[in-house]
Structure formats: structure tokens, C-alpha cells
């Protein structure tokens, strides 16, 4: 047995014939990134299987099974994207951008309404939310536009152009209305512009304008009687400042999520996690899954999850620096910003320091569109990594 194994191992270093792993491209992928993503998805399935036993009467594994399927499809998609050269997306930017805008617009026509908001199409197997995939599409298209237009027009014209290109789909999403995703779109736009080298002064101006906009939307407009946000949106955005002010409304959810997280203490309450089991925490399989983790598994579980996200973001930022071309740098930067923003806002809202905006926690929140889109984004990151590795070895294709 030993001899056989030794014989088999030795030729590998000599023959040109690649091993299975190498044929699959695994050595060129970023292992830690892949590990973090898969670990988070697996943890999601585990949490859902434990915490949503009674949510759908008669099928205790409803959410867990579906999430498993979404994650598996996502993994396949991720692998597929990792195997192709992301640089092709730069050429397809106009098509991608058009598809992005059209798919979001179609929701207004064909989408079904849930809780006063049209966000998704009802497909045979699951409901598809174009704006989730749209986050990735926006990164790919906008990065292309930035690279492509780097030499055209003055700096100011370019800044305005990028802003318009990015904020147009953001506005469409906002009108669905889906404030959270619209914010993600805006953050992606700014991040791509930032990594793309837009001047600090322009970025500062945009920042100041955004602050002014928030002031107008939240303070000025309502006082003159022309509210821009819907009532519940404004309430969600401001109630986190004082969540216990009115336990019956938006602050209630936040308060309950905070209580749930806090009650988990260091080691968690396991099956005695009453906050989540008895419905005190709303949307516990989606927006507030972090509170569920906090209560069930305590600081150890929640900190583990945060660490996995830190690992994810770190590897994404590392890939920004590794990219073989500027397009990859921008794309990786956009994806890193997208993930960071979503993680911070969602976890922050579970811990009572950020407003409730309906942003899912990447890979952990239940939902096909979100899981799939996030895996695809990881796939693009892997592709950048793979291309960089191959480039170092002088092999740009398999």
C-alpha cells in the first residue's frame, strides 16, 4: 500500500499531466475566501435547520432545505465564474448594464407585491429578485464604464457620468421601493469611483451632498409637508436612535433583536432561545438571522460569524491588490465594498446601532436571490484571483 501511494505521488511533480485538483483550477483559487464563503453558507443552513423548525407548519426543514439548494446552485455558479476570465465582462458592460436596468424595471410590470413593495418575479421554483443580482451586475458594468471612460472628458464630467450611471438603477430600486438595496447600489457606485481614482475633492463634494440629502429627506421635506420617504421607511431609519421609545412599532423589532442578541450572553441559549422561538424577533430567517445566532450561540457563535466575514472582506481587499488589470481591481473593490456595507448595516441593525433597512446578511440570510448573487460575486473575486495566479505563471488560460 505504502509503495503504491509513493509511486503515484512521485510522478506528479514530473509529468505535465495536471492533477484533478489542478484541472479543477483549485490551486489557483483563493482558499481562505472559498472557505469563508462555504463556512458561512453551511452555518446558515445549520442555523435555519435549528431555529426555524416550527416556522412552516408540517415541514420543519423548509428553510434549511431550500437554503441548501440555493447554496449548492450558488457554489456551481461561483465555480463557473471562477473558471472564466472576468475581463470579458468589461466588454459586455453595455449589455450587462442594459440587462440590469431592464430587469429591475420589469419588476414594476411583472413583479409581485409583498408588503407594499414590488421587488421580485415569481419564478416556478423560487421568486427571483433582480436587484440582488443587480448589485453584482452594477459592479461589473460600472467598473467597465470607469475603465473605458478614463480618458474621456474632464474629471468633473467623468465623475458626473459615473454618478448618473450608478444612481440610475439605484433610483429604480428605491422606487420599488427597496431603500436598503438602493443604498447598496449607491455604496457600490461610490466604491467603484473611489477605487477608480475619482478625485478626493469630488468624493468630498458627493459626501457633503449626501449628508444634505439625508437632512432634506428626513428633516426638511416632512416639515414642509412633502415627505419623500414612506412613513415606515422613515420610522425604521430613525427609530434605532431610541428603539425602546415605542415598543409597538419599528423600534419594537430592533429592541427585540437587541434583547435576543444580548440574552445569548457568552455561550448562547441553544434551544432555550425564547426570543426567536416565540416570535419576538421578526424576520428571523432573513434580516434578523444574526440576532438568532446571537441568542442561540452567544458571543462565541456571533463572533465566529463576524470573524468569517472579516476573513471574507480581508481576502476580497487582498484580491483588489492582486488583480492582473485595473478592471479586476475596480470589480474587486466594488464587491468588497458591497459585502462590507451589507455586513455592517445588517449586523449593526441586529445589534441596535444601525437603522432597519432590509438589507440581508450575505450568505447567512435565507433567500435564493441573495445567496446566489453573493456566491456569484465570490466567483468573480475567485476569477480575479485565478487570473492573477495564472498570469504570474505565464499562463492566462487553461
Amino acid at each position, binding site marked *: 500500500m505504502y509503495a503504491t501511494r509513493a509511486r503515484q505521488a512521485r510522478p506528479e511533480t514530473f509529468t505535465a499531466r495536471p492533477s484533478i485538483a489542478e484541472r479543477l483550477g483549485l490551486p489557483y483559487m483563493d482558499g481562505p475566501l472559498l472557505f469563508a464563503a462555504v463556512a458561512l453558507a453551511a452555518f446558515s443552513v445549520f442555523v435555519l435547520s435549528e431555529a426555524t423548525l416550527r416556522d412552516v407548519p408540517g415541514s420543519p426543514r423548509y428553510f434549511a432545505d431550500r437554503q441548501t439548494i440555493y447554496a449548492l446552485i450558488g457554489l456551481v455558479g461561483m465555480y463557473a465564474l471562477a473558471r472564466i476570465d472576468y475581463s470579458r465582462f468589461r466588454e459586455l458592460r453595455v449589455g450587462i448594464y442594459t440587462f440590469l436596468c431592464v430587469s429591475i424595471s420589469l419588476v414594476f410590470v411583472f413583479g409581485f407585491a409583498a408588503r407594499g413593495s414590488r421587488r421580485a418575479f415569481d419564478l416556478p421554483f423560487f421568486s427571483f429578485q433582480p436587484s440582488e443580482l443587480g448589485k453584482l451586475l452594477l459592479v461589473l458594468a460600472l467598473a467597465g464604464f470607469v475603465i473605458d471612460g478614463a480618458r474621456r472628458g474632464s474629471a468633473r464630467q467623468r465623475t458626473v457620468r459615473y454618478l448618473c450611471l450608478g444612481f440610475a438603477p439605484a433610483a429604480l430600486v428605491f422606487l420599488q421601493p427597496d431603500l436598503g438595496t438602493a443604498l447598496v447600489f449607491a455604496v457600490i457606485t461610490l466604491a467603484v469611483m473611489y477605487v477608480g481614482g475619482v478625485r478626493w475633492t469630488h468624493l468630498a463634494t458627493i459626501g457633503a451632498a449626501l449628508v444634505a440629502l439625508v437632512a432634506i429627506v428626513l428633516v426638511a421635506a416632512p416639515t414642509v409637508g412633502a415627505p419623500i420617504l414612506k412613513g415606515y421607511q422613515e420610522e425604521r431609519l430613525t427609530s434605532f436612535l431610541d428603539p425602546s421609545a415605542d415598543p409597538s412599532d419599528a423600534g419594537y423589532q430592533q429592541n427585540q433583536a437587541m434583547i435576543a442578541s*444580548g*440574552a445569548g450572553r457568552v455561550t448562547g441559549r441553544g434551544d432555550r432561545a*425564547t426570543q426567536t422561538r*416565540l416570535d419576538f424577533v421578526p424576520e428571523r430567517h432573513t434580516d434578523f438571522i444574526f440576532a438568532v445566532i*446571537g441568542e442561540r450561540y452567544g458571543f462565541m457563535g456571533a463572533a465566529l460569524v463576524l470573524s468569517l466575514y472579516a476573513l471574507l472582506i480581508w481576502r476580497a*481587499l487582498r484580491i483588489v491588490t492582486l488583480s492582473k488589470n485595473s478592471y479586476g481591481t475596480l470589480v474587486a473593490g466594488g464587491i468588497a465594498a458591497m459585502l462590507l456595507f451589507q455586513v455592517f448595516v445588517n449586523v449593526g441593525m441586529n445589534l441596535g446601532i444601525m437603522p432597519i433597512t432590509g438589507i440581508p446578511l450575505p450568505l447567512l440570510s435565507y433567500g435564493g436571490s441573495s445567496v446566489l448573487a453573493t456566491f456569484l460575486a465570490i466567483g468573480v473575486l475567485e476569477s480575479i484571483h485565478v487570473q492573477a495566479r495564472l498570469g*504570474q505563471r505565464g499562463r492566462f488560460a487553461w
Partner: protein
Amino acid sequence: MYLRSDERGPAVSNRLALRIAVFGGVALALFAVLFFRLWTLQVVNGEEYLAEANNNRIREYRVVAPRGDILDRDGEVLVDNRTSLALQLNPRKLPADDGERRAELTRLAALTNTTLPKVRETIDEELRLAPSAPVTLRRDVGRYLVYYLQENQDRFPGVEVRRVFVRDYPHGTLAAHLFGNVGEVSEDQLKEPRYRDLEPGDTVGQDGVEYQYDEVLRGRAGATRIQVDSLGRPTPNGQLKVVEPAPGNNLRLTIDSGLQEAGEAALAGTGLPGAYVAMDVRDGAILAMGSNPTFDPDVFTRPLTQSQVDELYRDPISSPLTNRAIAGAYPTGSTYKAITSVAALASGNVTPTEPIVDDGAFTLGGITFENAGGVAHGTISMQTALEVSSDVFYYTLGDRMNDGSALQDWSHKLGIGRETGIDLPGEQPGLLPTPAWRNQLYREGLTERPWSAGDNVNLAVGQGDLQADPLQMAVAYATIANGGTVPRPHVAMQVEDAAGRVLREIEPSRARQVRIDPEWRETILAGLHDAAQSGGGTSYSVFGGFPVPVAGKTGTAERPGHADQSWYVVLAPYPDPEIVVAVTFEEGGFGADTAAPAALEILSARFNKTAETVSGGASGIE
């Protein structure tokens, strides 16, 4: 970024490197914020949030324990419980909409015969006391109202009808002053150690035996703890813990209902404010005690109407809630002569047989004190002096005892001017006039003259500043009758469980022992016996025909601003008394006219014998 040299990609421009470094810094900061927040939430403040989570899911319902019954000495039920339907409101289940809520409260106000502001006031008040408890809007609702609410449940969200325990008095007003009433424990009371285990909304005794033996009677409330979900619905298998309520123990009193009834009838028969006590002379057990005017304790089981409040609390003259037997403050008149006798004998100021001349008047310092009616009794000794109630004889003793403090000392020993220690709240000490007391008042300018021998002369016949109540007189007479044991009066006999098993006997030890020579006792009792049942006695007209030998003394006290206070204190059977009865009436006139007949009614009931009518005696001469 920590990269091996062979891992480095195309050189990143410095500008980009800076931007990525800033990006990384921001990411680091954001994660630091999240970790820090997670730490404070879970590790630092976790206990707090855990408590809040438990508070969220657990609803505790208090299960009221029925109070114990109050029984008379033969086990007859004097106070028990009835269940009553109470209209309760859970304010949390009221409609969220202001208009709807207002409409419902208005409907409720109409149903409970009150107004919207009053309903709101009740709700606010009760919520402040007990934020989680349902608010009781009205007790004792009728069945028609219950049916109406059941048929219109959708119009009254949050309203429920619950059975509650209410005190029930099968004998009506009988012994009302002893029981006292029960009521919700007040905010201030909850701070007292004796109400340590209680919660707002619990019922406690507020007066009388209900107050004194509250701990025995009240039992221990139970609790059901139910786990609920976010909508307040009980979860399956959510019954966490049930603590069964422990019903209160029964309290058996020393009261003899028959005697109590007779006493109250005797009091009510005159229509005068007054009080009586019937006590066992040997151990101080109160056999009956009553005060007139009385009240119906049942009124306290319902909200009081304004006219009831006026009647019970705002009438200083009839003051029906006052138990005059322990809180009356009256001069005692000649009934005090028994006490004066003991003091004079004990201090050597007179001997049992020493003759003293009673020429009908006694002059002291230019003031003449006369016998009632100005009668001269001639040369008499103590026994006769008691029989005919010679004032001059006792004026003389009072004057003799002004040298020293024998009268005050012995009065104090026999229980005058101090609380007897009965197991009832609200006892008043009364007033025993002493030189020190009067001189102090004089120094403060509160009275026009200092102490003089005249004060002692007055005290010797139960006049002047003396203030005492029937219970104190009963204790003093009992002490003389039993040979020197000052009893501690008590109304409670024993604590029993619901099945009647005796858990604890209540036998208060004697208050103190005083030395009463058998000869003194015989002389005094003989005098009192003659007063009641020999032809020349002051109450012969009342007790002369009573087949049981008794020893009793009339009293007719001048009370400034009032007609005479009528008194009678009697020991029976003579010469070895078992029972002492003390009766007094405000503005009752001569002792033999109102108080003595009432005492006779009580003793008739006690010995089941009636008196034959006799003529003669010295009634009307006090």
C-alpha cells in the same frame, strides 16, 4: 498586505495603494465597532437582556388565596367568603385606535354607572400600582351584565369577568367592630415588613381582627406562570410553574355569639351611643364586646357611596366605626369606687371595717362635695359605702390618699390610663389624672389651676379628668375578683386549619400580678354584691330579682357638655365570679337606669335566667 514576493501582481500605483489602505482601515474600524458592540451587548450587559427576554415571555398570573374564616368560640362562622363577579379590564388589550378606545371606555363607564374620566382615573391609578395586573372596574356585577358582556364580547376587547373572593358576614352587623374590614393593600402598607410578600392588588385586613391576625387569615397567593409568544398567546406546554394558593387559616375567637347578640340587642335597645364588654375574669378571654352605633361590615365589600362615606366617616358624634369598648374615653363615676377601695386598703389609709362618718357632705378647702341627692348615710364602713354608694366615704379616702400617690399607683396597676394590650388595633389608653400631669398642663398654661386635693377627691369617685373605657373597667374588676391577676384581654382563641385542626392556641400570659389581700377582696365583693342584690343597694331594683348572685356597681358620671354618663360593672356569680360585664352609655343618665338593665340582659343570656321584678333599692341616688 502581507504578500510573498512571488505572489505580488502588477505593481499597484501609490495612489491606489493609499486608497486601498484607507478602504482597509475603514473595514477594520467597522469590524471593530461591530465586535465592540457585540461584546457590550452579550458579555457586559447579557444578564440584563436575558432578564428582559424572560420578562418578555413569561406572564405571571396571581391566584388569590381565600381568606380564612372567623369563627366564634363554638365554631359558628362569623365571617367567611363569598365569590363575587368582578368586571376587570386588561388595558393592554384595548383598541389601539384612540377613538375606538374612547368609545369602549365610554360604554364601560355607562355599564358601571360611572363616568369616562372616572374610569380613566381608576385605570391610571391601578396601573401605577400594578402595571401588569388587570384593572378591576367594578365588583359584584350582576348576572345580567355578565350575559350582556358575553353576548357583545367583540365590542369590549380586554374586558373580562372574574370570580373574586369577598368577605361575607352571615350574621350581618354582629360584632362588626371586632372584625374590621378588608381592603386592597395600600402603597404605603406595601413598604411595611409585615406585608413583605404581598403585591399590589392583594387584600389585607384593614382594621379589627382582620388587621391584627392578618397573617393568620390571609393565606398565601399562588401563581401560574405561563410562557407566551410575541402575541401574548400561551404556548403549547407553556405552563411553567404553578404554585397553588394556600388558603388562609381559620381564626376561632373567644366570642360567644349568643352573648354578643344579647349585648348588642341591649345596647341597641336604648338607642344611645355606648359600649359593653363581657370578659372571663380568669384569663381575659373576651366573651362579647360591642359598640353602638354599629355598622354593616358588608358595605366595605363594595365601593362606598357618598352617603355611606358621610355616615361612616363624617359624623363625629355617632362615629359608628369607633369601637367605644376599647376607645371610649369617659369618666366612670362610682364604678371607680372599687378601685379606690383597693388603693386605700393597700396603702393603709383605711381598714376593711373602719367606720367613717357620712353626714351627706364633705368639705375640703372651702368647697363642699355632696352625696348624690344630699343623702346622709351615717357612720358606715367600706362594705356599706359600696352598697349605698356613699360619695362622702370615698371623698374622705381620696383626700387621705392625696398625701402620697396610692390612688394613682393602684389605678395604674389595675390598668387605668394605659392600654390593656387587647389583640385589637385602635385601643386608647384613656387618662389617669396625676399631680404631675395636671401641674405640667398648668405650667404650660393649658389649664386654669394646678393639682389640688379636690382632684384626688374627684378621682376617688370616678369624676373629674378621668377617662376610661369599659374594657379597662372590666380588667380592673376582674383583677379584684380573681385575687390580683391582671388579665390581658384577648378575642382570639386559636388558629385552625380549614379542617378544624388546631394549629396554635392563643393564650396571652397575664399582663401582671398585683397583691390583693383576700380580706380586701372579700370586703369589696361583698359591698358590690350588696349594692346589686341587697335591699339598700343602688342597683337592687335591677338585680334584686336576678336568681344568680352577682356583685355590681352603678356609675353615673358628670361629663362636661353632656348629660350624665351611665355605667354598670358587674361580676357574676358572686362570690367566685367567672365573668365580668362592663356597660356604659353616653348620656344614659343614672347607672341603674340604662347601663344596669343592659348588663342584666347580658347576664340573663349568659346564665339563661331572667330576673323577677322587685321594688325598692336605692337607684336614682348616685
